[in-house]
């Protein structure tokens, strides 16, 4: 009985469930059609180093957990959201739809916590120097994902079309407008006109629920594939240990399973936040009214917003140029700081990172307080 079915590798035959069980039959059936045993074996062998920084290795999984929550709650919200009647439909979600207020609050809190987790993931990767070769592209895709997540936040913020979201978006886009040469054009393109109107919603909505999810999903797939191919990076302090002292977790059997309770806790945290501090819906946006006092962008844009205030008037261009340098420098770091273990450049990068983190925190706090 000749066929094009692939033979089961002996190694697989040994490690799969026995062939007379249902699971054994199913796995062999699949493996005969999709000969992916080398990949399975690679993944099963994947190890995570055990050391005192291990907690930081959970951050990527936490981001992914929040993203999953966002996808699920986002789909549920989309069932009732109507870009033609943005505020009214959100009001209906909050007031009439069963558990709508809860789902909306969870979506809100998961968005914020996801961006917070991204920051933690980014900085822990940076300080553990996991960006160094051969992992440059993981770092770069990660940075792109961070930027896109903030775009997610920015576009989602406007959708309820209440006072707060309207004015905060207007303030945000007016910062873009100040950019040289293309600023005006870009701002008009985003807004769909000279001011934030319902036309802006018609742009932000597809961006938020179609374009960004597709791009982000693609990038996440790439990002995770890179990680799976190259394995998790080992910090210098771990590499410096004698081999017999280095211990590892299995990635799938141990590390990932141990992370599930943490996700459960974060899921409960989302419900707790939704119970204690549900997301409010302000009165419907009234573009004719004057902006309420002290309107500010969301906290993850606050540091940039505050930094730009340091450059008044004609210095504004300079400020924007300096701010634009930050992401550029971050993209370039792995191509400059390459040595394992860290050399002088590596130490300098760490110091710059600390300065950058301190600046970020200080600017954000200042933005809050001012």
């Amino acid at each position: 009985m000749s066929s094009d079915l692939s033979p089961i590798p002996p190694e697989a035959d040994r490690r799969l469930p026995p062939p007379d069980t249902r699971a054994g039959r199913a796995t062999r059936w699949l493996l005969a059609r999709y000969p992916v045993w080398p990949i399975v074996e690679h993944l099963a062998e994947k190890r995570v180093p055990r050391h005192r920084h291990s907690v930081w290795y959970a951050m990527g999984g936490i981001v992914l957990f929040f993203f999953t929550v966002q996808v699920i709650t986002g789909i549920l919200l989309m069932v009732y959201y109507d870009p033609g009647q943005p505020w009214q439909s959100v009001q209906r979600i909050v007031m009439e739809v069963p558990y709508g207020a809860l789902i909306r609050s969870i979506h809100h809190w998961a968005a914020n916590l996801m961006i917070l987790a991204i920051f933690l993931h980014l900085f822990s990767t940076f300080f553990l120097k996991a960006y160094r070769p051969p992992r440059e592209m993981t770092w770069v895709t990660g940075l792109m994902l961070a930027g896109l997540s903030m775009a997610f936040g920015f576009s989602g913020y406007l959708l309820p079309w209440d006072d707060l979201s309207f004015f905060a978006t207007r303030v945000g886009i007016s910062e873009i407008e100040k950019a040289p040469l293309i600023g005006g054009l870009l701002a008009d393109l985003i807004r769909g006109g000279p001011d934030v109107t319902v036309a802006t919603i018609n742009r932000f909505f597809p961006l938020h629920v179609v374009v960004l999810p597709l791009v982000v999903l693609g990038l996440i797939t790439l990002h995770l594939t890179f990680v799976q191919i190259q394995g998790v990076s080992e910090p210098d302090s771990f590499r410096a240990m004698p081999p017999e002292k280095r211990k590892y977790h299995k990635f799938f059997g141990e590390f990932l399973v141990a992370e599930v309770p943490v996700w459960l806790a974060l899921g409960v945290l989302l419900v707790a936040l939704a119970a204690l501090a549900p997301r409010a819906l302000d009165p419907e946006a009234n573009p004719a009214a004057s902006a309420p006092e002290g309107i500010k962008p969301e906290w993850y844009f606050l540091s940039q917003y505050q930094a730009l205030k340091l450059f008044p008037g004609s210095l504004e261009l300079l400020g924007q140029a300096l701010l634009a340098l930050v992401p550029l420098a971050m993209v370039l770091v792995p191509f400059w700081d390459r040595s394992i273990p860290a050399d002088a450049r590596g130490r300098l990068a760490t110091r710059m990172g600390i300065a950058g983190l301190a600046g970020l925190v200080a600017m954000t706090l200042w933005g809050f307080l001012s």
Partner: protein
Amino acid sequence: MNYPVWDLPVLGAGLVVAIIAVFHVLVSHFAIGGGAFLFLAEWWARRLHQSGRLEDGERVRDFLHRYATFFLVFTTVFGAMTGVGIWFAIALASPEGTSLLIHQFVFAWATEWVVFLAELSLLYLYYYGWKHNPQKDQVLLAGAYFGVSWFSLFIINGILSFMLTPGGWTLENRDLTAGFFNPSFWPSLILRTVTMFLIGGLGGLLIAGRLESEDPLKPRVVRFSASFVIPAAILVPLLFAWYWSTLPENTVKMVQDGVAGLGGGRLTAITRHLILAGVAGAAVMAGVLIAVFRPRVVTTGVAVALMVIVQMGLMGAEFFREMARKPYVLHGTLYSNSLWRKDVDAGAPVLQAPFLGRARWHPGVEPLSREHGEWVFRLQCASCHTREGYRGILSRTASWTPEFAFRWFQTMHEQGVMPPFQGSAEDRAALAAYLLDLHGKTLDGRDVLEAARKAEAAKAPPPAPPPANPPQAAADTDQPREAQP
């Protein structure tokens, strides 16, 4: 209203109580359930010794010593101190209610104190006698500690459940037995007993997390700990159903209004917290099942995550219990703003008398001035509402007009969530003006009276606030929907 109101900005006195209490509930249940854990684990170790498996027995005792050190420091430093903390905080948040509890139950409390003193001493004898006590004594001491500490739960449970369901107790008969063994006493006691077993088991996971994953003891300790958690996690919802059946009618209605009529699916705070408790219970169950099937992955992080879940679940449950008393601090007797039910029953002569004449904790104000409204707010509203923080009044009044506010104060108690307003028409006008003034509208009580008079004269229903404003959608949705114009 005989006492000053602690007008704490942003947090409000109620949240201070909640912050301390939520933490205390976790630690105090751990202090009892952990006692059961110590007792059973000592017994286990002794059986291992008796069956000749000396080394295994020693390893279990090693593990137990770590558990006991953590237990001792955690329960005495955080548990005992936050317990005193709740007492401090409730006396600030509701002096009148605390005074009543103390005067009614002082000897119950004093008895609990004796029990606590014994509990503390037994724990020290157990822990500091570790080296020299024979194993039989250790088993007995741990067992005695558990029994004694459970008795302290028995006593405090009587007082706690009394506040929600006083049963046959009244201010006139002061019937101690009826108040103590009140309708929700037994379900509440058993519910808490089961919960504390659950937390004691999680404490075991916390220490097991520190064992190396290769350690052969680890799976056994994890499963031993899980055997406390899983039965409890199954029983809690069943016991809650029993507890639920003993709650006052208006509490049940309050929760059901939050979820029922799926057409009106807005969730009140009390319902949200109940959901939180349920979700947390399910999550604990899932987490512990993972631990049972993969005991070697139980790290400190995993155990802490489970503890955090339980902490949040308890927060939901305790917030639920506190909110279930609304609008009372002592059900049927004393409102949460220290208004006595007997004064309400006395009717208009008391209830509609000028408020600041009855509540004497103010320096004297110009009638209908901003200060007048501010003191009415402080002495009548501030025990529950802050201005812009927890249960902030600003977000709840964003859409108010003078006429609406003036009229609403007269009917706000009809939903069963707020106490009735105390005071004259001038008090209402001054309070309305103060609240609108907080929103930046310049007017005083006289303007409110004028607006109300005009609305009355027009014989039309008071004008609704601008339709663009959704009052319930504001920060919290506690406000009854029907109360909106």
